[in-house]
């Protein structure tokens, strides 16, 4: 039990440290509130004893009004307490959220491919929110109630030391039992949450694919519903177990406290008969005993939060401890030279951690300023090669040199600035065109943005948008494939890289857009080294050199003109097939269908 608390603390202390003032205010309010709460029953006792001894009515009424005043003040303090606790808690956890988000954005694709964005949102927001609840409510409910408990015991002890000691002993035993049982229940809630997340994850996938299921007929629907029932079952079973484990904590605690109360009342009754206590004192004991139940009940109610927070702490720490595999070099970084970069690939092998390599023993070298077109069928390793050059994965074997520098010896920031990669699927997020181009970088002003757009000859395209740079884009939609690619080209140009790798969109563009994209590519590649994963013969035409891949190996490599002129080359065969394809619309194959 000590261990998780210490870990919560370690995690939170880092984020609470800058807010000492707020935390101090909170402690003062907490103690003040508890003091007021303990004062109420004392007034009651005073009232009852005076009423029994027949004091003046005015004195009794004054006590009643004092009681009401204390009650009101207690509530005011409680509201202030909430304001301070929530403020401190949110400031602290927002820091944690930002740190976690930054950490996750730095983790490599191996990490991201294994996790859905929804899962990461759960970690960064869901788990941290559970932690925020832990802080703002647990701090008040658990720490506050613990102090209240001690206060009640001290005041009981003041009436009679045996009562204080007896109830105190029970309180200790109860807390020990609760903590032990709590430790057993904690992992169950983590599993419930996980099961719930899995359930809704699966349902979400089916909703997104509802048309696929509908068009696959009633069998598919029955199958999906059966899986739905299966997952519901697993979730329910765990939920009931977790609730039972939680209730066990409750049951033990309340039973023990009932015993303690009975003991206190029995002692009180004996004292009263012996004349050692007034009836007001007995009522005080009764009232304080009743007061003990509430901290216990609240403690147990908060235990659920604590358990969720516990599971959250585990996951948040795990996430924070996940180190990116792609890191800056340990030693002093080497700068990547300016200008177009030479690309040198020597005996490179790579396979996403699977036994069969996607890239096998590949070697080639591309002089600076030249443009290389890469052809090959799906799965031949084209995209993987691009990812390796941008260091989105590290090589299994072999070496890569960009401008003579091993990318692993350069700082990632420098590498990303010098190598521009346009992916096949351009990722768009909700925001304006400007946000999508600059990624919220305020340092890029509109003038620079417009220069880049002009340089690629895209001013006409921009002017055609309803609100220019302020046009709102929806996530994943709203732009045609061609437009998205144009946007990605501007993104790359803003970095002014020395090597541009372009994974061409495979979707067909209308001729106007195609011409626009083609022109933009030409301008982007001017004065830079270029590598294009080509899906169109028009694109292949702007390459100086041609590489044909199959099964992760180079089957043909050479200057375009030479290969085109050699009727025996694969490239020449491909060109002929492509020529058939255009005018007649017959049975030609695109470059995608290159012979393997």
């Amino acid at each position, binding site marked *: 039990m000590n261990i998780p608390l210490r870990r919560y603390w370690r995690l939170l202390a880092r984020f609470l440290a800058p807010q000492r003032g707020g935390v101090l205010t909170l402690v003062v309010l907490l103690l003040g509130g508890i003091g007021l709460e303990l004062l109420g029953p004392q007034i009651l006792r005073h009232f009852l004893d005076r009423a029994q001894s027949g004091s003046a009515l005015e004195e009794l009424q004054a006590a009643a009004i004092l009681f009401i005043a204390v009650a009101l003040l207690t509530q005011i303090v409680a509201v202030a307490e909430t304001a301070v606790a929530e403020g401190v808690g949110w400031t602290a956890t927002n820091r944690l*959220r930002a740190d976690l988000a930054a950490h996750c954005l730095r983790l490599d694709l191996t990490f991201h491919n294994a996790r859905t964005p929804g899962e990461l949102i759960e970690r960064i927001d869901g788990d941290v929110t559970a932690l925020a609840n832990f802080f703002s409510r647990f701090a008040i409910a658990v720490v506050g109630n613990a102090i209240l408990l001690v206060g009640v015991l001290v005041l009981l002890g003041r009436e009679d030391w045996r009562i204080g000691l007896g109830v105190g002993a029970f309180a200790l035993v109860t807390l020990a039992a609760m903590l032990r049982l709590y430790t057993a229940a904690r992992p169950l809630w983590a599993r419930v949450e996980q099961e719930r997340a899995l359930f809704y994850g699966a349902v979400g996938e089916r909703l997104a694919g509802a048309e696929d299921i509908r068009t696959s007929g009633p069998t598919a629907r029955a199958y999906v519903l059966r899986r739905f*029932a299966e997952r*519901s079952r697993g979730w329910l079973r765990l*939920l009931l177990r977790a609730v039972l484990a939680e209730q066990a904590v409750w049951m033990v605690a309340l039973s023990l406290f009932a015993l303690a109360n009975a003991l206190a009342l029995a002692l009180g009754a004996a004292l009263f008969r012996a004349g050692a206590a007034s009836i007001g004192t007995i009522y005080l004991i009764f009232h304080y005993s009743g007061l003990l139940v509430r901290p216990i009940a609240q403690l147990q109610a908060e235990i659920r939060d604590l358990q969720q927070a516990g599971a959250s702490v585990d996951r948040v720490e795990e996430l924070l401890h996940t180190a990116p595999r792609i890191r800056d070099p340990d030693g002093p970084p080497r700068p990547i030279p300016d200008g177009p970069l030479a690309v040198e690939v020597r005996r490179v092998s790579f396979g996403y951690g699977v036994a069969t390599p996607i890239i096998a023993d590949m070697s080639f070298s591309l002089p600076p300023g030249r443009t290389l077109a890469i052809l090959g069928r799906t*799965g031949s390793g084209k995209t993987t090669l691009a990812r390796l050059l941008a260091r989105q994965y590290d090589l299994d074997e072999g070496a890569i040199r960009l401008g003579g520098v091993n990318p692993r010896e350069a700082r990632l920031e420098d590498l990303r600035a010098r190598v521009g990669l346009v992916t096949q699927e351009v990722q768009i997020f909700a925001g304006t065109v400007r946000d999508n181009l600059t990624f*919220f970088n305020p340092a890029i002003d509109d003038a620079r943005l417009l220069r880049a757009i002009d340089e690629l000859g895209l001013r006409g395209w921009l002017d055609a948008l309803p609100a220019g740079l302020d046009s709102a884009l929806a996530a994943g939609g709203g732009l045609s494939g061609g437009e998205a690619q144009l946007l990605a080209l501007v993104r790359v140009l803003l970095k002014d890289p020395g090597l541009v790798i372009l994974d061409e969109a495979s979707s067909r563009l209308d001729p106007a857009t195609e011409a626009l994209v083609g022109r933009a590519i030409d301008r982007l590649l001017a004065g830079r080294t270029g590598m294009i994963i080509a899906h169109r013969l028009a694109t292949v035409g702007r390459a100086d050199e041609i590489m044909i891949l199959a099964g992760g190996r180079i089957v043909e490599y050479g200057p375009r003109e030479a290969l085109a002129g050699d009727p025996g080359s694969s490239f020449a065969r491909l060109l002929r097939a492509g020529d058939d*394809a255009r005018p007649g619309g017959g049975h030609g194959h695109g470059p995608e269908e290159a012979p393997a």
Partner: protein
Amino acid sequence: MTTWQLAWRLIRDRPWLALLNTVLAIVVAALDLLPGPIAAAFFDRLTGRGTPGFSAETLIAFLLATALARTVLKTNAVLAATLHEFVAGAIVRRNLFDAILARPDGGRAGPSPGETLGHLRDDAAQAARLVGLLCYGVSAILFTAGALALLLRIDAGLTLLVVLPPVAVVAVARRGFARIERYRQESRRAADRVTGALGEWFEAVQAVQLAGAEPHLIAHFRRLNEERRRLTLRDAVLTRALGAVFANSASLGTGLVLLFAARPLRAGSFTIGDFALFVYYLGSVSEFTRFFGGALASYKGAGVSFGRLIGLLRGAGAETLVAPGPLHLTGPLPRIEPPPRRESDRLVRFEAVGLTYRHPGSGRGIEEINLRLRAGEVVAIAGRVGAGKTTLLRALLGQLPAEAGEIRWNGGRVADPATWCVPPRVAYTPQVPRLFSETLRDNILLGLPADEAALTVAVRGAALERDIAALEGVSRRSSGRAARGSPAGRRSGPPPRGCWRAGRSCLCSTTSPARSTWRRSACCGTVSSNNPA
């Protein structure tokens, strides 16, 4: 149907469970009521007032026994309530899910799958919570009635004097709920902006990393966070302030008892036991007022939730949402029957006559399409982006409702293409296939009986052997997100899904550039393609 009727249907769907939940809650409430009179008797015994009866020690033993019995029963009551609410939620979730899977959305631009999921999760939970509250509410009402009856018997005037002001305070404070609701919505929207931004950035994480944009995004993230902190704080403080009013109403009541009972206490007409009873129940009565306020808000919330859920039912009646269908939460899972293959289903002629569909909003779509397809024919539909190729296929399948025209199968009019144009009569492969996080085998079969040999034929038919070899076998690798890294994995699932089901006719919207697979497969088909290949 009203919120009340819907909730009542949900309760009636599982009557025994509802009864168990309610009865257990009532028993617990009765045990909550008992300590009041016992404690009162205890004090009167000590001070020598009231009627003689049990000794003080016996009364303490009663108090103890009541408390112990309560803890045991409470555990059972909580379990029953958990089960009941889960089942009620599961009924709503299942019915809604089934309705979405059963019917196309009629071409309306409905909520995105993400939003639908949000409603399925949160609104179904809200509806289930109302069911739980209604069952619990019975016990709360009985408890309050019992407590008031006991208090009125002691001193009717004092009861009214001390009970009414707190109730009035609570009633007035309820007005604050409207503002809380507004604050909460605003803070929720701020939270949505935070999670929305995260979701998009992680969806586009590759682009973010390639652009080296992490620091700028985090700076933006901090701004969104700060906005959310401000709004949430406002919401929390108001909620707490209203909570304080409620909590205070009990203390206020106790203070009033002190004020008004001072005279009779001195006179001896009001005992310490009576005083103890009043204070004990006052807390509970104000607790009830608070519960009632919360329940009222939940009732309204559930009404809104029901409304949203019914809107997602694709035109099916509201009663569909609360139908007592089987949940299969226990016992054997249902067997899945493969669709019957009837000779009459064999395709001779597939026709569309005057088929028209225009997308609401843009007005684009297809108009007056006449199409005839004979057994064994392959028809390619060509056209530029936006020409209506996919719209035509979806209209042929009934996934978009035709404004005019009809579909004919072997000359007979198809009344409901959405349910008729399914395997084994028609198979469809969409341009962007959806994979689920199951094994590749399950993705292909989708519940059809597995026949290893036939599966191999289908996989070969779709020219997928190489892709599957790369994925290490049909059954091993789970797909969905896990396959994202590999383009082969992303594209490979559904073509064999279509092949496997293909009986008589096959519609395929190709990924482009077209895979040549469909020309090799043996079914007759309609191929819509962006690629003249």
